[in-house]
């Protein structure tokens, strides 16, 4: 396990609801990498990540997180991972500090470690003045920041974020992006879905484009341009071209 260089490896991952949502997806994310998963609505991004986080059972395929088979040993896989959804998962009747104490307790972090970490996170996310206020009066952006602090309190090796910037103002979004960048530089792996292609373009080491449950392109921005013969184009133009090709093929 110690020699494992892939943070996440998906093999033949399949999920069907009324229609095929994820179609035998193969995907590898390297350790210490910032990976952005982009795609049109209904492409299967969230379904894929929910299967990785253990929130959905795949119909077929395997999920491997730092060498741990997440389907046969979900507890060990969850211990090293954090999940942040676009809808903040917090409790209205708890204060941010109480929430962080709860999350740290769930991940079995000793108070001697978790309390200073919580203080640091609240300060870095600009939540320090609100540490003892119940979350019920918080704006969407503040709630998202509390949820993000909860995801980081146990110092995960892999952070999975589903549209984390939704509802954040420019200052908060910059805070969050800075925090995620710091984590990646410290060796953490980040996988993020986003509709804001500029964020993927600026922050991601590699970008995966998913459409109709399949990975249609993957690589750095330069690689994606080369693969598709668009040398000076933006990710947005590239994305539209890739998705249109997939739609025409379908």
């Amino acid at each position: 396990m110690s020699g494992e260089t892939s943070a996440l490896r998906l093999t033949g991952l399949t999920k069907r609801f009324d229609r095929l949502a994820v179609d035998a997806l193969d995907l590898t994310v390297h350790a210490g990498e910032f990976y952005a998963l982009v795609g049109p609505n209904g492409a299967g991004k969230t379904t894929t990540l929910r299967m990785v986080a253990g929130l959905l059972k795949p119909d077929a395929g395997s999920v491997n997180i730092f060498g741990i088979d997440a389907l046969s040993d979900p507890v060990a896989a969850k211990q090293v991972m954090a999940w942040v959804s676009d809808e903040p998962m917090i409790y209205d009747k708890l204060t941010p500090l109480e929430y962080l104490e709860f999350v740290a307790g769930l991940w079995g972090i000793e108070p001697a470690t978790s309390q200073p970490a919580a203080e640091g996170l609240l300060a870095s996310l600009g939540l320090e003045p609100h540490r003892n206020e119940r979350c019920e009066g918080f704006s969407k952006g503040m709630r998202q920041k509390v949820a993000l602090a909860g995801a980081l309190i146990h110092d995960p090796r892999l952070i999975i974020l589903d549209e984390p910037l939704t509802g954040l103002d420019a200052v908060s979004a910059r805070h969050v992006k800075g925090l995620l960048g710091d984590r990646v530089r410290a060796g953490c792996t980040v996988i993020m879905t986003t509709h804001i292609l500029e964020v993927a373009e600026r922050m991601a080491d590699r970008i995966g484009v998913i459409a109709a449950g399949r990975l249609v392109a993957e690589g750095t921005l330069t690689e994606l341009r080369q693969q598709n013969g668009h040398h000076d184009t933006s990710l947005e133009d590239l994305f539209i071209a890739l998705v249109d090709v997939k739609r025409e093929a379908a």
Partner: protein
Amino acid sequence: MSTATALSWFARHELRLAWREWLAMMTGGRRRRTRVAIIGLIVFAALMHLPAWAVIGRYATLEAPLDKTSLIVITSTVFLAWALMLSQAIESVTRVFYARADLDLIMSSPTRLANVFSIRIASIALTVTFMALVLSTPFVDVLVISGGARWLAAFGVVTAVGLSAAACAIAITVLLFRLIGPARTRLMAQILAAVIGAGFVIALQVAAILSYGTLSRFAVLTSDATAAFAPDADSLLWWPARAILGDSQALLLLLAASLAVLGVVMLIFSPRFADTAISASAFASSRRHGKDTAFRGGSRQQALRRKEFLLLGRDPWLLSQTLMQLLYLVPPALFLWRSFSDSSTAIVLITPVIVMAAGQLAGGLAWLTISGEDAADLVATAPLMPSSITRAKIEVVLIAIGVIFAPLVAALALLAPAQAAATAVGVVIAASSATAIQLWFRVQAKRSQFRRRQTSSRLATFAEAFSSIGWAATSALVLALPLAAAISALMTLTILAATWKLSPTRE
């Protein structure tokens, strides 16, 4: 659009919303179930005629003039209905204040807010009255079938009672806002609703226990002492009773008075309704402060249990529900205390009350802890086996039930140890059964949807009620009639088994 047209349009809009909310309550929010819900409602209404017959059938032949005791019983029943409707209306008004849903839209529209809120007040009054009419129909039917059409006047009395209760509820809630502010009003209104709803019955029971050593509230109402204190037969106090019996003058006066009260309330409080609603929505975005505490260690399950206890303690709906359950325990507790001095055999009545309350309270607690998980994804992605999470949540329910009911069982143990043991076992089984039903029918929901928990699964609601009743009966019978207790236990287990069989399949 003229003002009158705009207002009639808004009235139609309010009625449509009220109708859809009621339909959603009946169908659990599933549109396909409308036909099933209507059939179910008709069957339920038909079945309700049986208990109605048992309770009220014998009074169908009553004719005016009535003796004082009959006047007292009828007037008290009307007052009880009024108190229950007042309790329901206070809850409705509070909900309207704190639900922001369309307040921003209404308040930003170019209409006169006092007029719009007059309609909203009228809509609340109509909804409360409509529910009262629906619930009273089986009882009035029984009276009409057995005693003649003159009993149809009872519908008029129910309407008057509904309108006046809604008017008082609005006045009380707005005054609470003015007196104690929006921060405390929500909790206080819920507590008040619980106390008013249960208060009258409990007060009668307490009086009956203290004066006559019985739990029957009719002991007080039918006593000579009450008759001696009651005013003469021509008093205004008896007009509701006279109206029910078909006195058209009394009925018209009652209806006119209730409409006048509602009109005055609309006149005085409609302009303030907007201010109150604004204060409530401002409160929703205000901050409540806690204090710094050092992080506590312990196992992951301990962290879960701590979180659940913290949230249960801060849940205003649960607080009022628990208060109501505890209020209903006051008479048996008092009865228990009285029984220390005289070794009454009637003490056996305490057991079913305690067991029933434990089952019902456990059902509510179990829904909040098991289904009402606001951060379901967070808990599901935590490094714990799902079974550990469920176990921790069940422990919270059972610990809470233990803390609430242990003192009562301990007091009972001093007087009747065998009965206390039977009660303790009954409490544990009833609470476990209610929790199991909530587990079988678990849904992912927000805690704020607690009020709607009974509509998400009718089967679970009925199973929970029948299970509590079954275990209450079993516990009451186990010492005196063991065979009957065995039959009751078997029937309750059959209900539980059938419920489990019909519960949704889980992954």
